[in-house]
């Protein structure tokens, strides 16, 4: 990872010095173990703030919509697919972005780390040869990094950027065998009543902080439907119906656009399994329309186009 950091800094420095970009969006070291934080660099002397490691979990494409500058953005595989989506939807132009693509073998899920140490505080964490060493007040644990990765990373089939202007490091071999819909298939196999119970249980935890929406690169509406008062689509109090409708509608609004980057899931402070909804919709999109979001800027967004072969079982 050290080499990737050096490479990223080198590319960033050149981009800024050559004035190819006005701004670099990347990651810098966070203030807690296993955390990094989005970093905005405008001066070439500051590129040494940039780092790359397994804590760079945010989707930085979220900072692109409606920007007017030329931006160099550090992007993982999933992030590049979000960037494709934003270009397709005219939220940023291809010419504006210089994509520094980083092949990614997965980001660490701090909620899994928390569970591993039973909620105890971690003072120090080191990544070494595929292991993560966690040190606390009265413990030191070595855990396989793979076990600690986000669920979306463990089943990722886009480790390599789908679009880039510079590629950092070596391409990673994609694991064609992993079934990214395994959890969803298990969920689908449950009875209607079981699925409703599971959904209710998860969604009832929500307290409408909108971290999920705000972390998503595709949620860039000037006025989100939840904030509309004329008409008022849904209420704002903690009423289960309103909470459920918020999540269902947001999931549908991202249908055909969501790339399963997991940013929503990672942002949620109370560990709601948001990917159950978003991944299910993504699976439906794949099966009904044979479409995968964010793969190429040449593609037309799914719901903006019609194909005579589209499924029409609802027409009787």
């Amino acid at each position, binding site marked *: 990872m050290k080499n990737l950091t050096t490479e990223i800094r080198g590319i960033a420095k050149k981009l800024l010095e050559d004035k190819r970009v006005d701004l670099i969006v990347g990651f810098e070291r966070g203030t807690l173990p296993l955390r990094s934080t989005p970093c905005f660099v405008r001066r070439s002397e500051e590129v040494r703030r940039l780092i790359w490691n397994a804590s760079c979990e945010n989707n930085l494409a979220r900072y692109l919509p409606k920007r007017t500058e030329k931006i160099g953005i550090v992007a993982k595989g999933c992030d590049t697919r979000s960037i494709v989506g934003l270009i397709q939807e005219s939220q940023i132009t291809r010419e504006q972005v210089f994509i520094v693509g980083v092949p990614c073998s997965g980001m660490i899920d701090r909620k899994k780390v928390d569970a591993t140490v039973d909620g105890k505080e971690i003072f120090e964490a080191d990544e070494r040869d595929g292991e993560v060493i966690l040190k606390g007040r009265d413990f030191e644990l070595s855990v396989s990094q793979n076990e600690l990765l986000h669920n979306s990373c463990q089943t990722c089939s886009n480790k390599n950027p789908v679009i880039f202007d510079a590629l950092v490091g070596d391409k990673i071999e994609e694991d064609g065998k992993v079934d990214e819909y395994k959890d969803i298939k298990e969920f689908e196999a449950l009875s209607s009543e079981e699925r409703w119970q599971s959904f209710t249980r998860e969604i009832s935890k929500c307290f409408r*902080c909108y971290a999920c929406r705000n972390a998503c690169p595709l949620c860039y509406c000037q006025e989100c439907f939840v904030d509309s008062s004329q008409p008022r689509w849904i*209420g704002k109090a903690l009423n289960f119906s309103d909470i459920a409708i918020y999540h269902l509608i947001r999931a549908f609004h991202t249908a055909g656009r969501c790339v399963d980057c997991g940013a929503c899931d990672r942002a949620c402070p109370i*560990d709601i399994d948001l990917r159950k909804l978003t991944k299910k919709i993504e699976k439906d999109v794949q099966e009904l329309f044979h479409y995968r979001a964010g793969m190429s800027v040449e593609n037309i967004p799914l719901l903006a186009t019609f194909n005579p072969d589209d499924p029409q079982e609802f027409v009787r």
Partner: protein
Amino acid sequence: MQEMIISKKQIASFLNNLIRQYKVFAPIKRDSFVLFGEIHSSNEALLNFANSKIPPKEIFFPQSERLFAYSLTSGEAKIKEPLPVEKRLVFGIRPCDAKSLVILDSVFDGETYKDVSYADRRGKTLVIALGCNSPSSTCFCTSLGGDPFSADGSDLLLVDLGEEYVAQVVTERGREFVEEQNEYFGGVGGHSLDAMNDVVRAAEAAMKPKVKVGEIKEKLDDIFDDQIWSSLSERCLGCAICTYLCPTCHCFDIVDEAIDREGERVRIWDSCMFPLFTLQASGVNPRPTGKERVRQRIMHKFSYFVDNYGQRACVGCGRCIKNCPVNLDIREVLNSISNR
């Protein structure tokens, strides 16, 4: 300050007995996190915890609170107001959160304004705090004049000595409570007091103030137009995690939720981080971007609140630091401003 001892062996029976007399709130585990919830049996209480994810302000200032309900039937409007609460007790609140209640009191139960439902809940709740033997690295109460064993805001403060708690009686109400529950409390011996002093000193030593807030108000009042706010706020997502998880944040909105001829007026938590917070009917928004909103958040807590209520609206609990999705750390913000 009067001190008593309560053995840990007694705690289960103590809590079960209290549950018969009070509505008891204690730290409970819900899936992967801790919050303060009502317990119906002592074994639901989790006493080995750092701090709850959701702050206990919820017990006094619920996130979604019905102010009244109404129904309209041929020419008549029936209004249903909520009933006053019964007597309650919160057990195991941390000193930072107990202090947050004092801060909320200045807004909701102060000299000029008294919020009826907050005052009702606050007046009827006995607060038993639990001091922090092992503060987290994200805790910074001492930087703000707090302390892991501060009694500010509690009626009784417990110090964990391993096999027993020393219970410090803080208020008259706390004293009456100890008398009422005297079968559980015993006299405290010298060795326990020594052990208590050791525990307190160790915790305080682990929490040397590291965040520079000495002259933060003067600095803030000086740098309103400084460009530092652009860089400090650039990564903020504008969600409400820091607001909702903050024990002192207290802004709210009031909404009317109705279907046909029945409805209710509800008070809900709001956040200055939301774009709608200062959106005026004219369409003008004096805080149009995240920069103005982040600036406002910091200025409110460390300058405007000081002007209005003589205290800073932050207790150093660290929840915003731990839970921010982009690791925007308020300690860094404060230090950056102090160093400007």
